[in-house]
């Protein structure tokens, strides 16, 4: 039997994915961060000796597409092959070389066999705390955002750098838990190494180079073939979003160039970077661009580098989508989540049936801090999602996280943790953009402050001025809004609320698809019957 036929390759690929999935379960099991263990806000990968991705854990969210292999390549560039030794562990949370913000720590472990560097195990995970301001878009520079770890060895030949860990423990609010989570990652990386070495022995392979060529080659060919089906051309899309203050919206611009078997993103024309933590480092912009292409063309094929090779991205320096140090980047998602929408808008010019109308994303949140009756201070962070966009053949799903995958906090848990009373949390009728296929609905939530002492409240809210655009003749989704005691509130400012004050959050609906007059009679009836659409 030839060594790498259709069966052997599939079996070995499965085995490599299982090895990173095993590492992922080890992280879920042992990490303190609820973002890791409930929201899959982490990633585990295996790359070859050149930093080409071979396998990524199945559940990892789109933000991590391509980021860890890039971190591995930065590691190679920084230390060189000769500068890496068995037992070394490299760490960084640099937003530009890592995942786009300081909260994620990336850990890289070189894997050796018979003294030769043959692969890398790498993981990235959201820390319980990294110091700096808590979840605020207020930061002007990255220096305010927490402990910044340059690409460095934190274990040398298995020996931990105590200076590093002592510094880390001093800089964060949860020293034991942050350090514990980094060790959980180190353990996960070791597990990947163990599994990969066992697999190579079992199949009598010297290293991963032949596998990498074959797997990435096949995937690249499939992606190239899928791109080749798109007519060549330059496809433009432009969209405005809320901006930081009324009357000064941001512009996002994309020229998507399809030439033969390649696709190129050019974000020239996008607004400049801002003195707030909403800037989106290039690695995140790239991840979101690649995510859009994968959704549209090859949703079912596991991630690897071959898939990414035909996709190139450029964005002007010092723009929202390519900020440079020392820009603040903590809330990069509230900008980056617009990127796949831009890609779909451009692709819709030639292949509307493969994409989705805009979603009522990016994600919303409401952070409250105050003092409990017993004198303890608390901070509570609630997430809210809008509706998904419609696609050809299907209404958008209502109230769902996209493109990320963050759960909401149950009302019962939120009320147990903080002195709040929810009056309702319900679907928001009429918020989905109309069309042959309707956009998903957002939600209406009314929350009352039960605390005797005042609480401070901040928001992350988007699409309060510009609704999610419809596609192919579909209407835009309804804009979202934040009201305090019945009055529209400035969602970029902090508010201090007295007992009894009421916050009303209405998240945006998704855009519709296709002209409304084409909507089937029974779907219109069903919308009214179920109250998804209410007559005036």
């Amino acid at each position: 039997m030839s060594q790498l036929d259709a069966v052997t390759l599939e079996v070995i690929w499965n085995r490599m994915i299982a090895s990173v999935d095993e590492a992922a379960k080890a992280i879920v099991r042992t990490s303190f961060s609820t973002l890791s263990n409930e929201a899959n806000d982490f990633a585990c990968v295996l790359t070859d000796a050149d930093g080409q991705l071979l396998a990524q854990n199945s559940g990892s969210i789109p933000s991590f597409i391509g980021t860890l292999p890039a971190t591995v390549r930065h590691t190679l560039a920084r230390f060189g092959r000769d500068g890496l030794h068995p037992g070394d562990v490299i760490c960084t949370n640099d937003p530009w070389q890592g995942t786009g913000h300081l909260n994620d720590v990336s850990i890289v472990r070189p894997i050796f066999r018979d003294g030769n560097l043959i692969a890398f195990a790498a993981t990235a995970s959201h820390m319980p705390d990294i110091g700096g301001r808590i979840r605020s878009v207020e930061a002007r520079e990255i220096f305010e955002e927490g402990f910044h770890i340059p690409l460095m060895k934190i274990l040398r030949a298995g020996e931990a750098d105590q200076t590093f860990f002592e510094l880390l423990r001093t800089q964060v609010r949860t020293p034991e838990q942050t350090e514990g989570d980094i060790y959980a990652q180190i353990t996960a990386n070791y597990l990947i190494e163990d599994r990969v070495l066992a697999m190579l022995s079992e199949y009598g392979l010297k290293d991963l180079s032949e596998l990498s060529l074959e797997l990435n080659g096949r995937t690249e060919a499939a992606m190239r073939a899928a791109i080749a089906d798109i007519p060549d051309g330059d496809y433009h899309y432009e969209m405005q979003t809320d901006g930081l203050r009324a009357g000064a919206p941001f512009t996002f611009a994309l020229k998507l160039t399809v030439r033969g078997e390649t696709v190129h993103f050019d974000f020239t024309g996008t607004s400049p970077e801002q003195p707030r933590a909403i800037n989106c480092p290039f690695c995140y912009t790239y991840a979101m661009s690649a995510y859009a292409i994968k959704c549209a063309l090859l949703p079912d094929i596991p991630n690897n580098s071959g898939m990414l090779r035909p996709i190139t991205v450029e964005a002007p320096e010092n723009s929202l989508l390519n900020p440079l140090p020392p820009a603040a980047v903590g809330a990069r998602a509230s900008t980056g989540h617009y990127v796949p929408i831009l890609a779909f808008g451009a692709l819709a010019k030639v292949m509307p049936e493969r994409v989705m109308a805009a979603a009522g994303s990016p994600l919303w949140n409401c952070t409250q801090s105050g003092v409990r009756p017993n004198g303890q201070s608390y901070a509570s962070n609630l997430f809210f999602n809008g509706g998904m966009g419609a696609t050809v053949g299907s209404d958008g799903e209502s109230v769902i996280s996209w493109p990320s995958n963050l759960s909401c906090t149950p009302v019962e848990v939120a009320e147990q943790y903080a002195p709040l009373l929810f009056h309702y949390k319900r679907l928001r009728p009429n918020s989905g953009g109309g069309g042959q296929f309707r956009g998903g609905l957002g939600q209406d939530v009314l929350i009352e402050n039960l605390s005797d002492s005042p609480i401070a409240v901040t928001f992350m809210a988007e699409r309060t001025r510009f609704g999610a655009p419809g596609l192919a003749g579909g209407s835009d989704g309804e804009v979202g809004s934040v009201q305090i005691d019945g009055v529209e509130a400035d969602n970029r400012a902090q508010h201090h609320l007295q007992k009894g004050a009421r916050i009303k959050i209405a998240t945006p609906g998704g855009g519709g698809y296709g002209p409304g007059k084409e909507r089937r009679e029974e779907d219109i009836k069903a919308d009214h019957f179920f109250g998804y659409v209410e007559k005036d």
Partner: protein
Amino acid sequence: MTRYALGIDIGGTFTDVVLFDTEQGRRLTRKTLTTPGDPAVAVMQAVDQVLAEESIPPGEIERVVHATTLFTNALIEHKGARTALLTTAGFRDSLEIGRERKYDLYDLAAKKPRQLVPRDLRWEVDERMLADGAVHRALDVAALDDIASRLDGAGVTSLAIVFLHSYRNDSHERAAGERIAELLPDLAVSLSSDVAPEIREFERASTTVANAYIKPLARDYLNALSERLGARDITAPLLLMLSSGGLTHVGEVRRSPVQMLESGPAAGALAAADIGRAEGLEHVLAFDMGGTTAKLCLIDGDEPEIAYRFEAAREKRFAEGSGLPIRISAVELIEIGAGGGSIARLDGLGLLKAGPDSAGAVPGPVAYGRGGTAPTVTDADFALGYLGAEGFAGGAIEVDLASCRAALDALAGQAGLTPEQLAWGVHDLVNENMASAARVHIAEKGRDPRNYTLVATGGAGPVHAYYLAKKLGIRRVVCPRNAGVASALGLLLAPARVDRTAAFAAELDDMDWAKLEAAYQGLEAEARQVIADTGKSDARVQRLADMRNIGQGFELVVNLPTGPYSHDSGANLAEAYARAYQTHFTRPPPNVPVAIAAIRVRLTAPVEAAVNDLAGRGVQSSARSGRREVYFPEADGWVEAAVLDRAAMTIGDEFSGPAVVEEPESTMVIGPGGRFHVSANGNLIIELPEAAS
């Protein structure tokens, strides 16, 4: 004189019946096709046949134990009752909003799992509890009259009532339930504080709604089955298998049928645990492979582990998150879309895939000659010689080997492989899929597969066990007699069991111990009553609690020392928590106060007539039934292997591979270098050779 126990397991395709002679350790088994329209028909048919076989008087049956996938199927096929949901005003959409997550990250038309109650059947009533259980707004009882008439008008036959914070204070749910029952006495009512009294409104609602959805069905079905058994003079009490691996009486399941969703898989795990116990094995990986899925369950010590949440009715390729969250006690196991019917094909990259799509029972594998055209895992197993066409399934199925080979050859041509490479590829790949899922699950539990013994059951389990074990680095496989009906046998082993839970929020350092003790005793009294109604008296009590360090977003379920508790119990409970934490996180807990979020009790009472010899004993002398060409990759191809008749093997017999051992319900495959013998318990014990590398 009563000496027989009857086990009945209704699966999606087959209904298995086992009649066990508790005096002589003999069993009579019967496998028959399930009759979905009226499942009792197949049951009675099979029961009549086993009774007739040895003219056993029905009066000699001392107990009947039953498991069924009927309720799970009703959820999957959306064939339950017309169900409504009544919620706190402002929250009727909680069920539809869910946790706002998607289970497929790359599907732009992604949908949440379809809910069982549409929006027009979800009503609200004015009432509100606070998080501490205090009444914020009184229940508007008068409004229930109007709701009742609307329920009636809409033809609703079952109602779920889910109010916010009812796990802390159930008085509004109870009052509403009682009022509605007065107005509509025929309506089935399920209260969330009764079915799943746990915090998190969506998961509690999902569980309660699922319960309501199957409640009328469960009532009618159990009544019908009891009647028909009675009509055959089988008067022994009907006991039912719970997802937790325990037994209960019919009344308890009528109240809360959702507890029975995983009854079949639980019975399979119990059987494997018992086989492990008999063979003195500390670590067992139970492997049950049937027509559409495979189930794997880790058993450390004597019992399968229990999880307190699972998903029912997964919609997409068994994907995590694509099912309905159910909060009950259930044997912890993983289910994979890998079975004999799994279809082989080439994907867009030209790589071979096996499953998760299945040919099911209809049209089935090509070899069954019932219209199947897509090659399946079973077809590959025939082509490799693992399954024998002659006398397959006891002669019930005429095997069409020519069509089977033709279908495989066509796929081999497309893949550029020889027919043997392709067939072995399908066998190997489905094993790899199961091994991958097992590795990930085992990693999740922080264990090492090499410490386990694989116990193979189900029709396809023994066929795939040898090479699955090899992939996992497992050196020993155990295959019981009648492996194909092991779940029905497992039913006869289950203890009576009750699990109960209640909310209880308090910090250990600041505990009102009298209140905690009273809460545990309250739950225990409730559970004891169910045990008594099941016909048992002495129950073993295990106390548990959901505990966490303050500030953590998740709880561990911790086994606690026995009560009663008093003010000096604090250190013991803290120690129990620290031990559980160390096991789970592989490090000691942080120095932060510990809190209890909920308490649980588990009562178990073993069956009186211990069925300690399920493994059975062969009595005839050893005899080979022949030889055939079988494909083994480590022998570089076709080998003439021994074909052995399981029924003819005797305790102590020793053999070496390559070989296949045939039973009517299944076939055990042993590769070259493997050695096997029949243990004192009548099980086949297969030792794999040490890995070549």
